[in-house]
């Protein structure tokens, strides 16, 4: 087995761990907007950066906004909260409340996006770190606007063909007609470290007495 391939059980474990992180993130978003947030099943893939950027653009306008945070520790990468740019103000409005005027919402947009991303991505990453019994450092949030290639730095690093572990999940705020993704991107050296950690996690589950699994 190559270092850059995941076995079925590793893939399954990663999706499950991601699911725990993202569920916490969805719960945070739900508390912030006060409405139900629907989630898709998480997808875990090893793809090129370019292919990942295309997956994000699928079914979406090409103009995207993302709040991104990099993380490092036993494995490193970036976490992004992504949605179509046209929905950014609606998302902010759903968080700060409908009583604010459009001018106020526009004023607050950057602030609100950064803090929302911070809460959602931190919650997601911290949960994953706790599940794996590891510690991760996270950067301050920053905002990126552009197409999928800009978000995933396909062009500037000429690393479009480079393989990454791409983990994503769709979210949908039903009543607000706001949808987006939470995506995690990890480069290959990180994937090897992550595989070791995931295998520790799997062994930990196997050691549990029967009846406690799942």
């Amino acid at each position: 087995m190559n270092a850059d391939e995941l076995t079925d059980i590793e893939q399954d474990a990663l999706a499950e761990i991601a699911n725990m992180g993202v569920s916490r993130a969805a719960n945070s978003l739900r508390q912030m907007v006060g409405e139900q947030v629907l989630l898709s099943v998480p997808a875990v893939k090893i793809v090129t950066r370019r292919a990942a950027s295309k997956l994000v653009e699928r079914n979406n306008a090409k103009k995207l906004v993302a709040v991104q945070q990099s993380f490092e520790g036993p494995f490193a990468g970036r976490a992004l909260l992504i949605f179509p740019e046209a929905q950014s103000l609606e998302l902010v409005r759903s968080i700060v409340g409908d009583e604010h005027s459009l001018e106020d919402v526009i004023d607050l947009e950057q602030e609100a996006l950064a803090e929302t991303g911070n809460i959602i991505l931190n919650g997601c990453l911290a949960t994953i770190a706790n599940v794996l019994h590891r510690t991760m450092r996270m950067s301050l949030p920053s905002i990126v606007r552009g197409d999928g290639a800009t978000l995933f730095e396909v062009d500037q690093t000429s690393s479009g063909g480079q393989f990454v572990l791409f983990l994503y999940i769709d979210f949908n705020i039903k009543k607000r007609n706001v949808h987006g993704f939470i995506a995690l991107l990890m480069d290959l050296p990180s994937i090897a470290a992550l595989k070791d950690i995931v295998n520790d996690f799997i062994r930990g589950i196997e050691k549990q007495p029967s009846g406690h699994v799942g």
Partner: protein
Amino acid sequence: MPYKVLVVDDSKLARMVMASALRRIRPEWILIETSNADEALAAVDTADIALIDFNMPGTDGLELVARIRNTYPAMPVAVVSANVQNEIIGRARELNAGFIPKPLTDESLAAFLSGATLRMKKAAP
């Protein structure tokens, strides 16, 4: 007695959320808003309680708590963060600080403030 609450968070939105929760829970209390550790250290002498974000540019929230502890070993302080890693919560505990997860809820803030009030009343002569 109305207490003074020092809020330290680089995000204006986060400070708005905190201010609005405090208005609902303890409408008579006074809020001192700061956006980084330096401003917070300059204002801490006038505060009774501190609520501190973890992830801030420059000095992070845990370092700030450690510095406040040098001068105010008993001040009720909570770290407020979405970074719910066991390590972060553990370090807050070691500094004798509470931990309030983001998104902030009225329940979690009210619980911390009630505990803080009790401790300050006990300590007062």
